[in-house]
């Protein structure tokens, strides 16, 4: 019996070690690929004059679709900010998703909106659209407001897709701050390879403590709040170190819901956003790609590393927990819906690399981490724990987490270095040192509880409360 237990422990140890080593190897590889790709991107676009897009009759039309739910506090500034974006051929579609507050009334009053008999194509079925509004003021001609029965973000975006009549759609969170030249940078990949590029995504940055004036970000500052700082580090790691590499090998599975651009025809033919998942952004990208792989059409999803969109990060563990819980549910739902892609070479890089990576190292990793802790606790309880081995492994994991965070900061330093204060880097290094022991365990727990909630059948988004940006008037 003892021999059996020893063999079992040995096998588990080897499996855990193998998992950790392959994961570390994958992350380092992605990090190096990202840094390389970033350099290429910066060199390639050194002399690009984006103003040529601005003045050209050949620039593709873009619909900015922004769902709004209970956004009365900031909606007017947000809409004005969207309307002032640098692009010629664009429209702004705000979809009021049955807000309980006076979001709609505020827009009606501020933009002089009236109901119009808009003939909408119902290419995707959605909840009832109550009315479509246009402004009587010619200054807001580009604005269309849709009022609909509440159906969730995916449903609101689908209404936007139905209303849109442009070649490209940019789906954004209404409370995000979009850089003035964001659309110019996002449409360029579509213009360079119009047959293949079906979607493009930009970097999302944390705007907490940044200074905002008239809906424009005028000064980048590191968040004062430590929880937001943890997220700055996470976002840099995810966007600058992961997605850039996946874009390079055409394996991107996720374009952030906060700001992503799609070819409208492809999004519609794939069926639009899925109402039945809280990870609708990832699910749409995967579904579009799956559809095109099945039709044997070559395509690309590209990633623009310029910081184009700034968002306010949750500053309390409670709200952050809800967000991460939802992300975990969304990830699993997407992976489950598209499980046929798992290690399926028919789906190219997605099937053979991206999907397995997401499955093993994104979705499964919190469970492995929890399992490791429980496993060790059981061994300790029975006096079988090898404390020295445990501490060595813990040190290695901690050192690796620190190393990856530092690599991410180096990548940021070498590319856009938005945090220019010397003390900011001191704070970020400190954040990287405490993150694995203070913040990461919570992230693991939120991911696990998200999966538990999914089993329980939870479908809600969870309320997100925000503090608002530092405004300069």
């Amino acid at each position, binding site marked *: 019996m003892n021999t059996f237990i020893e063999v079992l422990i040995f096998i588990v140890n080897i499996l855990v070690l193998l998992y950790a080593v392959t994961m570390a190897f994958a992350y380092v590889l992605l990090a190096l690929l990202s840094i390389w790709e970033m350099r290429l991107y910066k*060199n390639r676009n050194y002399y690009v004059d984006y103003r040529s897009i601005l*003045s050209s009759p050949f620039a593709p039309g873009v619909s900015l679709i922004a769902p709004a739910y209970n956004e009365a506090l900031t909606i007017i500034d947000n809409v004005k900010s969207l309307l002032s974006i640098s692009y010629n051929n664009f429209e702004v579609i705000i979809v009021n998703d049955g807000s309980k507050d006076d979001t709609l009334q505020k827009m009606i009053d501020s933009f002089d909106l009236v109901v119009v008999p808009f003939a909408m194509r119902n290419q995707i079925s959605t909840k009832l659209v109550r009315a479509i509004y246009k402004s009587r003021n010619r200054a807001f001609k580009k604005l269309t407001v849709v009022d609909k029965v509440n159906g969730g973000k995916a449903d609101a975006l689908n209404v936007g897709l139905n209303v849109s009549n442009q070649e490209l759609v940019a789906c954004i969170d209404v409370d995000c701050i979009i850089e003035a030249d964001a659309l110019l940078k996002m449409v360029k990949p579509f213009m360079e390879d119009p047959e293949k590029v079906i979607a493009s995504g930009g970097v999302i940055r944390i705007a907490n403590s940044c200074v905002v004036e008239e809906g424009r970000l005028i000064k980048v500052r590191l968040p004062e709040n430590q929880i937001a700082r943890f997220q700055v580090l996470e976002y840099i790691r995810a966007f600058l170190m992961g997605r850039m590499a996946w874009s390079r090998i055409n394996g991107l599975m996720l374009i952030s819901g906060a700001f992503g651009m799609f070819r409208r025809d492809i999004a519609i033919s794939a069926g639009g956003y899925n109402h039945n998942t809280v990870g609708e952004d990832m699910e749409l990208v995967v579904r579009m790609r799956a559809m095109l792989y099945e039709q044997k059409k070559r395509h690309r999803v590209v990633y623009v590393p310029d910081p184009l969109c700034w968002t306010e990060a949750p500053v309390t563990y409670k709200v952050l927990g809800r967000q991460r819980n939802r992300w975990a549910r969304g990830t699993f739902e997407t992976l489950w819906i598209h499980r046929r892609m798992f290690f399926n070479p028919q789906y190219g890089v997605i099937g053979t690399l991206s999907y397995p990576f997401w499955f093993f190292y994104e979705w499964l990793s919190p469970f492995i981490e929890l399992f490791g802790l429980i496993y060790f606790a059981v061994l300790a309880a029975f006096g079988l724990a090898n404390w020295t081995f445990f501490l*060595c492994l813990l040190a*290695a994991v901690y050192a690796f987490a620190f190393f990856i965070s530092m690599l991410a900061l180096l990548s940021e330093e070498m590319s856009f270095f938005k945090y220019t204060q010397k003390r900011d880097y001191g704070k970020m290094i400190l954040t990287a040192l405490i993150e694995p022991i203070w913040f990461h365990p919570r992230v693991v727990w939120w991911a696990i509880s998200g999966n538990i909630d999914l089993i329980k059948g939870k479908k809600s988004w969870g309320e997100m409360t925000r503090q608002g940006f530092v405004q300069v008037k």
Partner: protein
Amino acid sequence: MKWRLLIGDTIALTGVELYIVGVAVLFFSFGLLMIIVILASRVIKTRHESSVQSYRDHFQRLLNSIVVNTSALEKPDSPVSFDFKLTELDRVIGGSVVGRQILISQIIHLKRNLSGNAAYVLSKVFYGLNLQAVSISNLRSFKSYEKKVKAIRELAEMNVKEAIPLLERYLLSSNKLLAQESLLAISQMRPDDSLRYLVKTQQTITPWIKLNVFHYWSGGSGQRLDFSGLLTSNNDTIIRLGIDMISHFRQTSSIDKISSMLSHPSETIVVESAEVLGRIGTDKHAKILVSLLENKNLAPEVIRAALASLGKIGQPEHHKDVIAGFIDHGDFGVRFQVLQSLKALGLKPTNVLTANDLEQNENIVRHLEDPLLQP
């Protein structure tokens, strides 16, 4: 692992544990190394930035005085002040490669925002300091393709025509970006002659290339060039470029060639040709569009384009029935276009369509009647 290592008297590590500790130490050391690199980078960047800034300030002062003085005197070739300033610039640069590169970038950025005499003077500074040699040398060297792309852009922006033979070599490069940039550079430097290169190229003319060449041709060359030659290319993207340019520069002399493209096997080319007929065609071309619409197997996109054009160049009495004939089409866009085209011909839907058709498409009728929904 059987052997054990003693550290002091208390901790004993097996081989595996030792290996894991080694890995931990390695990662942590790399992490610390990166902190040093980041801090060093900060120091270097700060110094580099201040050095760059100092160069920029110097250059800007000198460039301002060159541009302002020569412009104000209206004597761009005034040798005394110009040569003196040029020598001064050369002295500031010294042997610095960085300085030279900063000056190139600065001249390009300034030139983009200036025109006329001021831009001419900046070009003179560029050539006077032989800065084109830096870009040409970068293009000739074995540097990465991104560096070459950067050099190509510099040469194009500064209109260094002597580099054209060198750029021609890259037109057929297997590196798409190099091929694209050399094509754009030649088009920018020789807009009148660029069609010769375009006809020969096997490159896909992307909207990005189209946008840029259109920008160069908009300077005046577009009116002089005959784009109909592009319509005979075996490259569909070249044909599409030709169609677009004929439309934008309103080359009505080429319109018959456009109408012959309606029988092209590419649906996109047919759609674009039909749209151009609506923009610059005449009544004669309306008949051609009617013949096109007689084909029962047309894609909705083609029908839409043909109907839209018919709405613009057709005659109400001759074409209302052809247009109205599509009112029961299954595609929403086609039905929408039917009503839009009837409106464009000055017809009221109630006078052309049956009560049933009107009822079926009531939402579109109301949409088209609302002034706030008009483009």
